[in-house]
């Protein structure tokens, strides 16, 4: 295990990107920080800049206007960076599949600029906070 991966697993700093979500997954992500779930006890911290982030928590379908911004945010992260597709929309566009302003699920947009990106999926509408924690822990443990 390289020291980079080792350090990433110890305390992943995450940046939250909403690319066209309905707020549900986003609110549940904020919920992770609050007393009931409190992910900071695992060293997981929400940061204000993608440049500080080890992981991106992406929620929502990628809309046409948001796609270039998502690519830009991914470019700005330091690699290796794990991308978490949070919720049904981010995983596979969900109920918004046939929208004219929707360009695709998160993995499609990220793979356009980085075919080898590490992408983890947490399905659910919205995923329960417990599912999000479990998803993050699982993804980090197989790195």
């Amino acid at each position, binding site marked *: 295990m390289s020291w980079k991966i080792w350090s990433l697993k110890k305390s992943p700093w995450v*940046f*939250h*990107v*909403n*690319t*066209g*979500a*309905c*707020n*549900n*997954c*986003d*609110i*549940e992500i*904020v*919920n992770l920080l*609050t*007393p*009931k779930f409190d992910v900071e006890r695992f060293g997981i911290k*929400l*940061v*204000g*800049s993608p440049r500080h982030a080890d992981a991106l928590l992406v929620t*929502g*379908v990628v*809309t*046409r*206007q*948001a796609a270039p*911004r998502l690519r830009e*945010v991914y470019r700005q992260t330091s690699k290796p960076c794990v991308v978490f597709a949070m919720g049904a929309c981010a995983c596979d566009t969900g*109920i*918004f*599949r*046939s*929208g*004219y*302003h*929707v*360009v695709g699920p998160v993995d499609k947009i990220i793979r356009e600029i980085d075919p080898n990106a590490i992408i983890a999926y947490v399905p659910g*509408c*919205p995923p*329960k906070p417990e599912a999000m924690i479990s998803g993050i822990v699982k993804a980090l443990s197989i790195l």
Partner: protein
Amino acid sequence: MNQEELNNKLLEIKDKLTAVEQPADNRIYLACEAENAYAVNKFLFEDVPLRFVIATGIDSDDCFEVLYHYAYDETGCMITLKVFIRDRENPTIESIAPFLPGAEWIEREIHDILGIEFKNHPDMRRLILADDWPEGVYPLRKDAKGPAERPDGEPSTRPTIQTQSPARRTVPLAKPVIAVGPFHPLQEEMEFFQLTVDGEIVTDIDMRISYNHRGIEKISESLQFDQVAFLVSRVCGICSASHPLAYVQAVEELAGVKPPERALYVRTIINELERIHSHILWVGLAGHFIGYDTVFMWAWKYREPVLDLLEEITGNRNNYGNVKVGGCREDIPNELKPKILKEMDKLEKKMDMLTKAVLDDPVLHARLKGVGVLSKEDAIKYAVTGPTARGSGVAIDVRRDDPYALYGDLDWNVISQPQGDVFAKAVVRLLEVFESIKMIRQAVKRIPDGPIAVEVKEIPPGEGVGHVEAPRGETFHYVRSDGGNRPVRHKIRAPSFVNVPSFRASCIGEHIADVTITLAAVDPCYSCTERLAVVDQHSNVIHDYEALLRLSRDKTAQIRKELGTQGIKMEDL
């Protein structure tokens, strides 16, 4: 004015109208031709006067229709003015935005999605579609190839907001600006603000949306009436009980369906639980913005039992999917009633403590009073709703004005405050939590036994409007059916659509340090403050989001020092 006087008043302009229909006491449909639209709208808004709700653009077979929806809150009457634009090649209509700034955004939206020109509109930039969406492709026209058409082609050359970073900006800016957005770590959705500043004072504000536009109104036309309720609960995750309820009420009005009594109780309880968790959520975030992270943590902790209750009733913490045309899908089991009452007792005590801690705090008084004032006149002009309107002395509440579900039978008060500042909005939200607790108690105690849904076989041709008081304000849905199994047009107006443009009235003249809390004060469904750079051309100082949050918090700390208080102590809570 009672309903009869209102009817007579509307008849004053009848020589300009082509049709007047009144399917129910408090539903009026007027019709006129495009050339009279401006005069009739001006009459309705200024002379009657009605509250502007929203406009709907429709592509009918032989013409375009623009529907202007108004509300008369004293009698709960919804008035819809149908304007027919016969010229399909060059659809044009006079803009009403010059006298009604609340209509500015919706006219831009209709232009984007249907291609209708609005003459004399002050600002016809692109609003709802992406920057690279080709010009001349209108997704809501019926000749568009279905909801999944994603056209390529030459991107629009219409001017848009300067969203680029300073290094890549092609047009130099005349004045220093602050770019706010489109990402933020704590707020939920994307939204881009541009503040023009003079030193510390904000002199102008501009906004760009579209990041979150998913084309729900178009997708809705491809789903069956029963499926649409699931789609609209995903318009906004926090209003995921209000949107389906408004839609279902519109369809029930259209089809003449009356849900059974128990269903009305279930709907009321779920909607009030939603309001409680949404208002507590806001108090927490507002606390975070001004540097009171203790308030943030405590508020969100108190919110959890409410979500647990909702999960126990509907099976999900958000996105309940519980309401359907003709009733509800899931019942509240009778054995859950004592638990709901117990949780309400606990919550009331905790909220009492939190409210006192927030409202008695001298620092918060100094920090929030007189900040971000939205005057009553502006509130009416921008047609704002919900706590934003009630905090500015406009005491409107759909639950009282046009009672739906059970609200007509419950004992509760509409909370309003005259000041219009951030503090008033906080007071409104905090006190509304107690009203909601009161309503839930009454509903749970009186809930009758019986079925929770009636069978609905067919949706006849026709149209209906449904509106519901969501936590952020009035959620409005308009549904039109041609007798098939899908809506031919479904218009959704979320409360933030009218509340957000009011920033132009409340932010200008404020200090930069007060902007974050002013933006947050309307509880926008998409407020974003991340990736924020303050550019001052004179000094070339570039701040980022963290710096702005720090400015806001420093101001709180400064006030605290001057007042000589220690802030909130643990024992106070």
